Structure formats: C-alpha cells, structure tokens
C-alpha cells in the first residue's frame, strides 16, 4: 500500500531523504503546471518549482498537518511564483519568444499532422488572454482548472474567502471568454 502524504512528511521530518524524494516525485509535475500557468515561462517555471521544493524541505519541520500537504505546497508555489513574476518582469520580445516555444512544443506533443488549426489558434490566444489577467486571477483559474481544487482549498492556498475565489473565478472566466470569443 502506498504511503500517504502525511506518512511521507513524518518520515521526512525524521530525516529520511528518500521520503522527501518520493514527495517531490508525486508533486513535481503538478507544481510545475501551476507555476507555468502563472508565469507563462518554461525556464522560470522550472526554477521556481525547484525552489518550491527547497522551501518545502526547509520548512517541513513546521508542517503539523493542520491543512492538507498539497494545499500547503501549492501555497508556497503560488507565493513564490507571484514574487518571481513581480521580480522578473520580462520584456515583451522575450515573452513572445517564449510563447512561440510553448506553442511549438504543444504541436510536438500532439504529434497530429492534421491538428485542428482552430484549436491551435485558441491555445495561442489563450496564453495571451491569461497573461492579461492579474496574478490573483491567474492563480484561481489555474488552480481550479488544472488541479480541480475546491473553492475552499483555493481560498486556503491564496488566503482569501470562498466567496472571493468564486468572484475571482467568475471575473477571470468572463475576461477569457471576452478575449477568446471568436475562437470558441
């Protein structure tokens, strides 16, 4: 039977590095996805994701299981991503280079020579539309869409009420729909 997150956390607190490694293997892709959604930059997202696990390792003794491990780790990830975004505001040119990279890689992943051009356009404009949101609005939409987290969990991660999560989600979706209307 697979050990729970809490079992691994306790082992980690006891000094077992392999338990920490297991936690990293469980969450590295999810954490990376959330951060990539917030930053829109692959290299920065990778760096911030690795930094997130470093913070987790250093702070794990202070985690007493009061909240779920995943809400705790996402809180660290989102805070670091928002800080990184404020610190490393990229210039416009670099952002577009990055955009192209993301889209090219998406086409490679799909490996579909008859891939729907309409969907490709939607993705391209989706990145731009998401980039136009504030970090707080990006965070709710990314956490909700990617992870399927509840309003309560998202509120816990972002330090706001469920009502705020709901209204931010509604606003973010409305913005995205307005910008992507012709591709939907």
């Amino acid at each position, binding site marked *: 039977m697979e050990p729970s997150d809490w079992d691994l956390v306790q082992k980690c607190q006891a000094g077992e590095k392999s338990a920490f490694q297991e936690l990293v*293997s469980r969450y590295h892709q999810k954490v990376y996805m959330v951060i*990539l*959604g917030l930053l829109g930059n692959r290299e920065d997202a990778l760096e911030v994701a*690795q930094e997130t696990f470093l913070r987790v390792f250093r702070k794990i003794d202070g985690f007493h299981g009061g909240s779920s491990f995943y809400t705790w780790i996402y809180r660290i990830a989102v805070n670091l991503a928002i*800080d990184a975004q404020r610190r490393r505001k990229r210039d416009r040119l670099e952002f577009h280079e990055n955009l192209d990279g993301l889209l090219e890689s998406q086409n490679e*992943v799909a490996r579909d020579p008859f891939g729907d051009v309409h969907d490709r356009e939607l993705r391209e404009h*989706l990145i731009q539309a998401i980039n136009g949101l504030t970090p707080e609005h990006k965070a709710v939409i990314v956490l909700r869409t990617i992870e399927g987290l509840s309003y309560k969990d998202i509120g816990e991660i972002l330090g706001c009420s469920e009502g705020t999560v709901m209204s931010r989600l509604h606003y973010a979706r409305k913005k995205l*729909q307005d910008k992507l209307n012709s591709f939907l």
Partner: protein
Amino acid sequence: MNGCERIREFIERRLDAEWSRAEDESVSSHLESCGECSAAQRKLQKIDGALKSMLAGEAAKIEFASFWVGVERRLNAPQSWLRDWRDRWIVVPRSAWAVPAFILLLLGVLSFESYFPAWRGGVARGRFASVDSIDAHGRTVALLRENETRTTVIWLYDEAEDEHETAEEDPKSGPAF
C-alpha cells in the same frame, strides 16, 4: 438578475463541482431549452479543456530525474541567510525609483530659495519682499515681511485719510453757518 444569468452562475459552479443536486436539476432542464446557455457552457468547457491540455502537455515533458537533480543541487548549496531574507522580503517593483525621485525633486524645489536667496520666481528681490494690508473693522492692519531675517512686522493704524477724502469730496458744501 434574469433567469439565464442565474443559470450561468450555476453552470460555473457545476463545472467546478460546487453545486447541489437541486440546482443541477434546474440547470439541466434549462440547458435543454436554452441554446444561449448551453453555448455558454460549451465555451467554458472549451477554455478549461484547452488550458488543462496545454499545461499538462508541458508538465509531461518534465522528467523526475532531471528535476530532482536541480532540487538536490539547491539542497546541497550553502545556505545564504542574507539571500533568503532578501528574496523573501525585498520585492522591488519596477517603478520604485519614481518615489525617491519625486521626494528628491520636491526637496530640491522647496530648498531652492535657501541656496539662491536672491532669486524668487525669476525676479530678484529686495530687502522687503512684500507689504500686505487688510481692513479690519475700521482699522488697517499692515503686514511687513522681511525676507533676509524672515521677520514679519504687524502694524495697526487708524485710517485717517478717509475723513480727509470725505472732506475733499464735497468742497461746495462750504462752512456750515
């Protein structure tokens, strides 16, 4: 709020799995009959699906082994409390320079006179900068401001000229006898 607007709120909550069974039934029956609301639901699902597949595709390319190497390198790096403290607390926004620049400019403007006492608004000034007078219930108050020593003299006096002017205004009236 009309029926469709309310239903669209429910649609979002249903998409987020934050709805009740009773709401679900009313939404389902509305969607069967309302083309606009079912199109709105389709759009929301499409945006969610596109975002999820795009980021999942990217995340799938992150191999654990190479990711772990990066984490381990950070774990083994010597810890710098100064860098940690700076990263945690000092986030300098891009336009932060504007605040000290504005304060310096303001201080410069305010202290300009101290450095160039002979200059005021492009006109050289003398010892006495200004004399203002106001009428206060029949008495005139004059304020004499001296610039070099920054002294203000307040001078109260009766306006004797009024009587004189009145006497001059009516020269034809002659002596009253």
